[in-house]
């Protein structure tokens, strides 16, 4: 059995990826009431876009750039304009259901046009192990953790320390007032969709070398990010970060100490406990809806 330290590092690594995905998830909710049930598939797709670019002859770095740009166009711009904007007029629930349909469509499309088999994917961080005080630690886990955390920290700094970030927060907290004082609310909402697209592309780049590129890989990820967002607090970026790390560690520890078969059940049980006793999430605030 792997050492506790190794399990923790691996847990934090997957947790940091969950956090990336969960942060994007809460951003979409906060700025445009979009509960994106296709968020897991959003993580699945960029890896395939990058693989397709590599098959076409692009070197890995170029494939990454192409993958991120295409994500921004498809999962950011097109998602907002073709699905969210028209559906949001009918309400939050119809939009959520439409994203479920989108998830199915994306999975089937990748299965149909790419492959139903899992494909290997190169890693951007070193994959060998190092020894720290006699413990073997996966350099890949460490690298994934560092990259993901840096990305989250960068985003948090953007949101909290720049005027652009304050405008985004204003547009999310109270769009009517934001508009009245001259914040370009529509542009801020589009920006969150683009940021989400970059976050999922990054998550895809980090997690696919570990779990392989497969059309169905978004199911587990989407669920984990969803649980992370609710556990941490749906309306708080820092809640999503904490929730992501927590679920990642919990997930890995329960796989080792409980049973690999029940690993997915433990975060779900945790979710139920949270909903029962602290429905606003660990760091969330209870939401007062104003008319």
């Amino acid at each position: 059995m792997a050492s506790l330290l190794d399990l923790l590092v691996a847990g934090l690594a997957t947790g940091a990826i969950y956090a990336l995905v969960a942060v994007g998830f809460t951003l979409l909710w906060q700025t445009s009431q979009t509960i994106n049930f296709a968020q897991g598939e959003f993580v699945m797709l960029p890896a395939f876009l990058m693989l397709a670019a590599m098959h076409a002859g692009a070197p890995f770095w170029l494939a990454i750039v192409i993958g991120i740009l295409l994500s921004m166009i498809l999962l950011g711009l097109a998602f907002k304009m073709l699905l969210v904007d028209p559906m949001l007029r009918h309400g939050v629930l119809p939009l959520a259901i439409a994203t479920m349909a989108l998830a199915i469509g994306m999975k089937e499309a990748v299965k149909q046009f790419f492959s139903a088999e899992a494909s290997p994917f190169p890693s951007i961080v070193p994959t060998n192990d190092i020894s720290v005080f006699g413990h073997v630690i996966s350099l890949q886990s460490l690298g994934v953790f560092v990259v993901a955390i840096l990305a989250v920290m960068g985003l948090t700094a953007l949101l909290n320390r720049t005027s652009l970030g304050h405008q985004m927060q204003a547009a999310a907290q109270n769009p009517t007032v934001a508009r009245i004082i001259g914040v370009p609310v529509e542009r801020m909402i589009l920006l969150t969709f683009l940021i989400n697209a970059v976050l999922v592309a990054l998550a895809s780049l980090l997690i696919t070398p570990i779990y392989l590129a497969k059309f169905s890989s978004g199911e587990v990820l989407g669920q984990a990010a969803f649980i992370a967002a609710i556990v941490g607090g749906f309306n708080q970026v820092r809640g999503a970060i904490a929730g992501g790390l927590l679920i990642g560690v919990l997930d890995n520890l329960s796989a080792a100490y409980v049973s690999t078969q029940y690993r997915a059940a433990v975060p779900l049980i945790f979710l139920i406990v949270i909903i029962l006793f602290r429905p606003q999430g660990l760091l969330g605030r209870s939401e007062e809806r104003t008319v």
Partner: protein
Amino acid sequence: MSDSILSVHNLIGGYGKMTILNGTTFSVPRAAITTVIGPNGAGKSTVFKAIFGLLKLREGKIVFKDRDVVGLSQRALLNAGICYVPQGRNIFAELSVRHNIELGGVAAGRGIDVASRIEAALDLFPALRRKSAQQASTLSGGEQKQLEIARSLLLDPQLVLIDEPSIGLSPLMVQQTFKILQNLRDRGVSILMIEQNARSALEISDHAIVLELGQTRLADKADRVLHDPRIGQLFLGGAMEETAA
């Protein structure tokens, strides 16, 4: 028309099929406080929304400084020199006081020194300066209103539309808020205000407009309206006894 900064002509509009503004017409004098009074449903807030481009008009003309501003975006209106402080709490509760004020300057054009205007706004409101690093949600109701006014001043507006500034404030806070509006007026800013608290509002106002069913019933000097027995009976409560005595 040059003694008025804003005039609205024959505004017709409302929400859906419901018509609230039935040909509203009035003008707002320059560098003065003008208070709009009238019963509920008279269209006071609606006319503000119409002026600030938040309500689609079926008909009518809104002229600000000799320029028709119907159909302009909020950003364009801000840059033209109009700002709007709506009713209720309109702050970003989770941002700091300073960041809330800063947001008032996002529509500022290049070449405007927003930083020094923020300092000037904080000079005007010492309570806000003391609490500038705190989350805006920790401010009292009156301070939150001050924050909204401070934020609206960052673009150096010539006309401030302010809707029910005294609502939910303690009498002392109401006085302070009115004092701020009077200071602005003395610096040449034109103020168009809606106040439920009509008597105290009229006491600090230069002009008054009485709206009823979406039409202007009366427009006159504030003190004349204040002492008009008909108005007293209708809106000021208790004024009849006073004038009779």
